[in-house]
């Protein structure tokens, strides 16, 4: 039986630099896994390969048995994959709720003519889109800021907004790229709770890229560690913490006494 989500020998070069090198791992449906590694290890590139921002040089990204590699980004999303960005890509000029509505509308369609005339399913459609968006905002604690411009939110809230927006796409696989970047300990704790929360309530399969050890070790039972584009370790948090390659990647070579 093939895995729910699987990378098979995924490889990508950028003019001589091996960004991702023969990467393979599998995730079961409903797993919450973590992808870690020092800066430049190639983690975001993996996400970019999966979501069609780059084309892999070789290898496959199999989602429910189908290779996402040759697909364009919007096609990957249509298959049920959503992601957030390391550097945040909110629509700064739009309001908080509009950001989520832009995603929520994908699953609540109505025709162009109905949009043109505001007849037919426009009213009920817009109402449903807004309701669904407010619900998600409520879940991430941003409902009271719904009409604020997204760019004016504090950083931690902007990250939550991106997560809410991704959830509005009703994905089956959620890719979170450094959701805790720039957060303090308290914010990380509350983010942990949120991720666990959505993992359970939506039955999502989640892959998280993270640097913050507190987050990744806390919530992920399955961790893959990368360095220089290749997988150097895979296992439970305990396995990873003890793994010599991982220690070397993060702490450098051990000095022989």
């Amino acid at each position, binding site marked *: 039986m093939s895995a729910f989500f699987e990378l098979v020998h995924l490889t990508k070069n950028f003019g001589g630099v091996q960004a991702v090198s023969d990467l393979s791992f599998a995730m079961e449906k409903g797993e919450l896994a973590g992808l870690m590694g020092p800066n430049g290890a190639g983690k*975001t590139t993996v996400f*970019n390969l999966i979501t069609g*921002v780059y084309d892999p040089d070789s290898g496959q990204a199999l989602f429910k048995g189908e290779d996402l590699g040759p697909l364009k980004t919007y096609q990957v999303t249509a298959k049920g994959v959503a992601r957030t*960005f390391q*550097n945040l890509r909110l629509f700064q000029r739009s309001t908080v709720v509009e950001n989520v509505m832009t995603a929520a509308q994908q699953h609540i369609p109505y025709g162009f003519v109905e949009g043109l005339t505001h007849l037919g399913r426009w009213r009920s459609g817009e109402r449903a889109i807004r309701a669904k968006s407010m619900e998600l905002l409520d879940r991430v604690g941003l409902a009271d800021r719904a009409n604020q411009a997204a760019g004016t939110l504090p950083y931690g809230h902007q990250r939550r907004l991106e997560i809410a927006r991704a959830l509005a796409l009703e994905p089956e696989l959620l890719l979170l790229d450094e959701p805790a970047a720039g957060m303090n300990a308290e914010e990380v704790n509350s983010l942990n709770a949120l991720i666990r929360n959505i993992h359970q309530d939506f039955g999502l399969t989640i892959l998280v890229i993270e640097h913050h050890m507190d987050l990744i070790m806390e919530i992920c039972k399955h961790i893959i560690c990368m360095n220089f584009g290749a997988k150097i370790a895979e296992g439970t948090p305990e396995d990873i913490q003890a793994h010599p390659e991982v220690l070397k990647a993060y702490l450098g070579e051990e000095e022989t006494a």
Partner: protein
Amino acid sequence: MTTLIQQIINGLSLGSVYALIAVGYSLVYSVLLFSNFAHGGFLVIGGYICYGVLRGMGGSIWFAGALSLVGAGVAAVLTERLAYRPIRERTNVTLYLLIASMGMSIVIENIFVIVAGGRFRALPPVIPTAPVDFFGLATTSAFDILSLVTAVVFLGGLQIFLTKTRWGLAIRAAAYDLRTAGLMGVNVNRLISIVFFVAGALAAVGGIFLSVRYTLYPQLGGITTKAFIAAVIGGLGSLPGAVVGSLILGLAEMLTAGFISSQMRDLVVFSLLVITLLVKPSGLFGKSVGEKV
């Protein structure tokens, strides 16, 4: 057969002038990643300065030319400082730069319309246009040979500047990644000013030759559209591409004018653009601009 060779030489000559303009435009694009639509304005400024010096002061073509280059270069730097830098410093939305550049283009052109009048002016005949026998194969004009040679000299000079000087190296680094070049200690604002100066100067040379070919008038800058198209065909941001694209365009125009009809010239140019975008949008030597995601 002689017509063919004649038109080929014509085409190369026209193409080489386009190349001077297209290269300057591509240079700016490669560093700032936006199309400076005001580029035509620098061309016109160069043309009018040259005309003014030749007619008003009776100076030599060398003096007039030098003054044009400097004048257009300075105008380019000023345009950047006044119109683009404030926008650049505030936001990275290139749409605003595009709109401002279009505005500048119109402002420059119309200043000349108002001040110099819309008349067509012929440059005093200091650039030889006498017919020349080309190896017995065809008769071409000295002008065509001269514009080709001048273009080669200037483009060669640019190449030397880019490969053998420190600022040239800085520009090539900036074309690769402006921010990183800045982080490496390059004075980004000064670099951009230098790039604009060079682009303006090259446009001025092109402008002088185009004024001789087509007479001088404020809307002459409109010809830069063809240079833009040449740059796209060659690959936006690539300097060799701009040159090759320009030559192709010049040849296509002249061959069409010679063998089909003069009116079809511009349509052929436009069709080449559409074909390029359909078949190989990044152009012949395209620089692929990947955004960091």
